[in-house]
């Protein structure tokens, strides 16, 4: 039991960041779409999260983590925006490889996890406390399960495309998203607001950017042999 726990922990430390964004199959074409997601106006403040209720988690964060629903970077960039091909993408097959979602320090890692409909999803509890994973699915079947420390990962998948909010009732500040898509051509913006959708065959695509607070923005992009560019700008309000 304990061995398993440490194995899981080690695996997380090693793979965590690598897995954060991509778990998609290798590119099929050489074209790509890159760009930046920014905002205009004044966004909501990222509020520090008070985790004092769960000391084992609180002590993992030297400075308190903040809310991530509107995560901004320098130069008005927006983090955690899912940019994906919403039309024009044909023939994506579900990879056999699964994606991994971690609960660590009473935080979801990554905050937004993309996956294909039907793709295996493994949810790990790396904390020394119980979490309950409660994906508030509306299109798919909603469920709510606890995961005591040291339990095996929850192995599941989603059948239909949907942006699913995930919450932990035991730690109400824990909020994340599953972005279940029909396409593997997807990129999630980092702190600098940039994204890079790779492996596209030349052609015309519709690109959609989704932000959990601000919704979606769409534009049409024609991809040649190299990199095409698409930038998205969301309008932010302070409240």
């Amino acid at each position, binding site marked *: 039991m304990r061995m398993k726990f440490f194995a899981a922990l080690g695996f997380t430390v090693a793979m965590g960041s690598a897995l954060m964004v991509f778990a998609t199959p290798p590119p099929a074409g050489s074209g790509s779409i890159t760009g930046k997601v920014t905002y205009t106006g004044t966004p*909501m403040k990222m*509020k*520090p*999260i*008070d*985790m*004092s*209720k*769960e000391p084992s988690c609180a002590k993992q964060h030297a400075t308190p983590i903040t*809310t991530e*629903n*509107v995560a901004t970077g320098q130069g008005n960039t927006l983090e955690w925006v899912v940019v994906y091909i919403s039309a024009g993408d044909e023939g994506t097959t579900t990879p056999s490889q699964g994606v991994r979602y971690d609960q660590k320090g009473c935080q979801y890692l990554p905050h937004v996890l993309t996956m294909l409909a039907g793709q295996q999803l493994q949810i790990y509890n790396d904390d020394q*406390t*119980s979490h*309950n994973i409660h994906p508030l699915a509306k299109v798919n079947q909603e469920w709510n399960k*606890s995961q005591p420390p040291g339990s095996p990962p929850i192995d599941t998948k989603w059948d239909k495309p949907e942006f699913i*909010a995930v*919450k932990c*009732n*035991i*730690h*109400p*500040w824990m*909020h994340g998203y599953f972005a279940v898509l029909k396409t593997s051509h997807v990129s999630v913006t980092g702190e600098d607001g940039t994204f890079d959708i790779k492996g596209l065959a030349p052609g015309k695509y519709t690109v959609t950017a989704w932000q*959990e*607070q601000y919704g979606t923005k769409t534009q049409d992009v024609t991809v040649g042999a190299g990199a095409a560019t698409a930038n998205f700008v969301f309008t932010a*309000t*302070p*409240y």
Partner: protein
Amino acid sequence: MGKLFAVAVIVITLISVSFFVMHTWWMPVDISTTGPAIDHQLEETMTGSGLLFLAGQLVLGLFVWQASNKNPARKIKMFPGGASPLVAAAIILVGIEILTLTFVGTKAWGAVNLAPAAADSLHIDVQAEQFAFYFRYAGPDGQFGGLHPDKIDDGSGNYFGLDPANDVAARDDVVVGSLVIPVNRPILLSLHSKDVGHSFYVPELRIQQDFVPGIEIPVHFTATQTGKFEIVCTQLCGLGHYNMKAYLQVMSEPDYEQWLKSQEGQ
């Protein structure tokens, strides 16, 4: 067999009582102004009913010991005086105990639940939800913003459902996950629940009060000692009930002011 029973009952009784007498496990130190009356009431009840317990079990042991005498010539004996004196004694003794307990106890209860909160109390809004407590201070303007359940959004940290866009009073409300209070100052909490029934229990304060969805319940107390204590939920509220807690931090007045300033800055 009867003698064995008598011995067993007496041994069990003495062991049970000894842990009460030794206070091996006991209430934590009281840190509230209303607690001593409750402690006193509990100690009185403990002494009175402890003696009854002891007497009842020992008499049972004694009678069973006597009743196990196997002498065939022995005749049964009726209880001297029959039932009436017992009935009368029970009515009078227990009746007096009841009236005393009620009379004294009502005062202790009243100090907690009937007396109004002091006018200069520090008012803090408390929300219980599955499975955490959140505390709200009015901020520099001294005004609480209104609550709008439809605006509640845990993901953005809006646990209370404030509407800062339209409600100026809500903009400076301080929302935290710990109850921080100054020592020796009357505190008035308004308890309200976001979802289901919860309860606010601080053993050291000798305070326990349910959150009832749909209504707001006032609780007032004054803490007399600084320190860090636990607030736990005692009303079954769902899967995370066991882990629903928050810390109560009682600070000196200057520390509290400083803490409040630092929170308002955020």
